[in-house]
């Protein structure tokens, strides 16, 4: 049930911001500080989410096979690999390290 509540809230919230952009008069959201904040919020959230999902197990900080997988993804990004190759690199390396007992 909790999951459906979260899904419902996300559906409504995400659709509302999309629609707001199309409907509000230009200028209402055009203040430079608002624009800067909207550009920086995803950066902060994505950085925190990347770190948490790589280095946590529940509420504990851990370093495990996922760290190797993320390093592989980072390398793939530096080599300008396509999106799906980046994700696949992380998955394959993580599975490989686990298979080797890492």
């Amino acid at each position: 049930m909790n999951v459906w509540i979260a899904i419902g809230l996300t559906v409504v919230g995400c659709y509302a911001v999309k629609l707001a952009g199309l409907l509000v008069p230009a200028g209402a959201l055009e203040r430079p500080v608002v624009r800067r904040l909207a550009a920086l919020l995803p950066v902060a959230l994505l950085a925190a989410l990347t770190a948490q999902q790589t280095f946590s197990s529940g509420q504990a900080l851990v370093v495990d096979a996922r760290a190797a997988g993320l390093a592989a993804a980072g390398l793939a990004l530096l080599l300008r690999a396509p999106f799906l190759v980046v994700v696949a690199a992380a998955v394959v390396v993580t599975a490989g390290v686990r298979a080797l007992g890492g």
Partner: protein
Amino acid sequence: MVKEAVSDGAAVGRPRAAVVRDALGVGVAVGLSGFAFGVTAAGSGISTLQACALSLLVFTGASQFALVGALAAGGNPFTAAAGAFFLGTRNAFYGLRLSQLLRLPRALRPLAAHWVIDETTAVALAQPDRRSARLGFAVTGLSLYVLWNLTTLLGALGAEAIGDTQAWGLDAAGPAVFLALLAPMLTTSTERAVAVLALVLGLGFLPLLPAGVPVLIAALAAPAVLWAKGRRS
């Protein structure tokens, strides 16, 4: 979702075929990433039906990944949805640009709003005139929406079928997606400072606060860095 560089360079009155080709290129490439979402959702303990509902009704990738990640970590529905919502706020700014560019009839706007995401905006903004922009927006939106939903279903069913998703390393798909989304955003020292501060806050508060809350605290890195920069200049 992924920011695609859309090649432009054509003069006014671009041939429709060229617009469609660009739009399909982006739509297909990114639409296939729904597979990664389906797999991640299943690995997070989200049902196939719930994963498909998210792709059908939320349709903004980073928010979807954030939500299932937060739920998997044991976050309550409100903090999980708040993180997803904040990631979606950038779409409002895309809408602002698009409403001037596309000049859609009022009746069409509620429908078009669902397709206002990174990729459709990138393709539409790359076009030299309104007709091409409308065509690019529509073709990118339709192809991406159809594929994203199909591949979400396939990914979720596939991950369910193989059972132990951790043994297959599928729990690394989520963070890899976030990293791939984040990397192109780190263009200036401001963005990098925000990322580093958010990382420290996100990991630092993780052992101390309930799941989902540290991510929201990490979001404060954005106003904090802006404020610090404002004071220095």
